[in-house]
């Protein structure tokens, strides 16, 4: 079920230009703060009338919320997927090395422990402050707090696998380290890693929205769910729709990713079922 909701949102994001949206950044001073469902009829110079319906209303700059929410799905998907992929890749490399090289292990794990001592959102906000706001800075700022968790996971798998008799046997038969890792350790790390990736993806989508909402993330003209909500903050009492619609999409997406993660966890490795 999680997968289905996610597929829908993914398609919505990709097909946003085809779903009756307008330019999500187009400012329209005449139709500011329209309620959801408001219809605006434009009479052109030649007397022909065109009508626009604002399904989700407009914000205080007259931008169409419906279009912005649909386009916002793109940013969330992009951030979620790229953060998951990058942090998995980085975590896998560092974790494998830490699990195998003793001298590297002590040094790297101290750094990871230190990074984990800074609460994730706080670390991300701080890292964003280091560079100009933008998509790339946001992705990096979210990746860095996630990497230590992946490293720990990979390292723990490596440490348990390297004691297995078949790995010892392979070593005794003269297998070299790198092929050994690729053939024996990697497949074992893959299942928990994929599960972890979905949780990282969910938390990346939330943190991106939080950063944008706080005004330290992606620049406000870019339609992201967090930005739409940040824009709607000032007039929330009068026009709650600015916050309502992106909230629904955001919550549904994160819920879907988490449900998918739980499903994958149960499906890929029954032993993990009772763990967190």
């Amino acid at each position, binding site marked *: 079920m999680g997968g289905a909701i996610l597929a829908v949102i993914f398609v919505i994001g990709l097909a946003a230009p085809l779903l009756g949206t307008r330019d999500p950044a187009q400012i329209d001073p005449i139709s500011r703060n329209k309620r959801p469902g408001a219809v605006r009829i434009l009479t052109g110079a030649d007397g022909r009338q065109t009508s626009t319906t604002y399904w989700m209303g407009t914000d205080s700059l007259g931008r169409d919320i419906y279009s912005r929410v649909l386009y916002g799905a793109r940013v969330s998907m992009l951030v979620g997927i790229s953060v998951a992929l990058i942090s998995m890749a980085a975590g896998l490399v560092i974790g494998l090395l830490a699990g195998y090289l003793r001298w590297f292990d002590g040094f790297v794990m101290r750094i990871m422990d230190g990074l984990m001592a800074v609460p994730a959102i*706080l670390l991300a906000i701080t890292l964003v402050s280091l560079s100009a706001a933008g998509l790339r800075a946001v992705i990096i700022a979210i990746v860095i707090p996630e990497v230590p968790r992946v490293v720990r996971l990979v390292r723990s798998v490596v440490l348990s696998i390297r004691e297995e008799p078949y790995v010892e046997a392979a070593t005794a038969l003269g297998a070299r380290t790198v092929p050994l890792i690729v053939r024996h350790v990697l497949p074992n790390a893959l299942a928990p890693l994929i599960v972890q990736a979905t949780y990282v993806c969910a938390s990346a989508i939330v943190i991106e929205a939080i950063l944008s909402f706080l005004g330290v993330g992606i620049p406000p003209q870019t339609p992201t769910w967090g930005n739409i909500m940040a824009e709607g903050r000032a007039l929330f009492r009068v026009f709650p729709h600015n916050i309502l619609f992106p909230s629904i999409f955001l919550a549904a997406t994160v819920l879907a990713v988490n449900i998918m993660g739980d499903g994958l966890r149960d499906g890929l490795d029954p032993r993990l079922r009772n763990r967190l």
Partner: protein
Amino acid sequence: MRGYIVRRLLATIPVVTVVAIFVFLLLRLSGGDPAAVIAGDSATTQQVQEIRLKLGLERPIGEQFVIWVGRILRGDFGESYFFKKTVAELIRDRLEPTLALAVCTLLLAVAMAVPLGVVAAVRRGTWIDRTVMGFSVLGFSVPVFVIGYALIYLFAIELGWLPVQGYQRLAEGFWGFLERLILPSVTLAVIYVALIARITRASVLEVLGADHVRTARAKGLGAASVLLRHVLRNAAVPIVTVIGLGVALLIGGVVVTESVFGIPGLGRLTVDAVLARDYPTIQAVVLLFSVVYVMINLVVDLTYTLLDPRIRY
């Protein structure tokens, strides 16, 4: 026992050191001359020069770090040129709201989550269990500011029971103080309840299957007594652990919740400092929150021996 405490204390030193190095480097990583960055855009050349001398920026970086740590240990976090105050003063001003919010949330979350988790475990597989677990997944997924706005809309705008936003100091009256804390605490507690309830359920389920519980029941103890004395006590270690680890969520949540509810606390200060690129404040807040988090988990680890006499170090 004493040996364990000493070892556990020593183990926090590398962690805090790494955090301190990171926080120290923050200013250097920001690009540009640290003194100019601290002074801000409207500073004169002379001010920049003063800061440079004060921080010892002309010395080697290792020495700068030692000077910096020494000042932090004396409680001198430098000066915020943006807020025109010393950082220590800023933090002191903003401490009460954050502390009140965090304590309120913690109490609320534990008071709700532990009973929910226990009931879910005892009534395993029933609709109660499924509701609690469903809520738990939902609580993890709905971002904290979404919950905040939903609660504001329902209880403050539609029903008008509680104030929409703001904060009132405890000294100005208890009811006004409490009234403004209810919605933010509930908001922040949701994710925490989700986390604690889940662990409580898992850990109680594990203990419920143990032999000594069957024995306790067989000798005719009442259900409540079995639960409290034999189950919960044995299930306590994982629950307390997750309460400690969850403080990271709490701190992250404070930053967001204070912005949603317009509470002038440390979380809001963090966001304002980042928006203004006010590095002395950013450094102090990150360091403070991280050290608090590490210390809370240190205390949690040390309580294990009290909770479970079988744990000997």
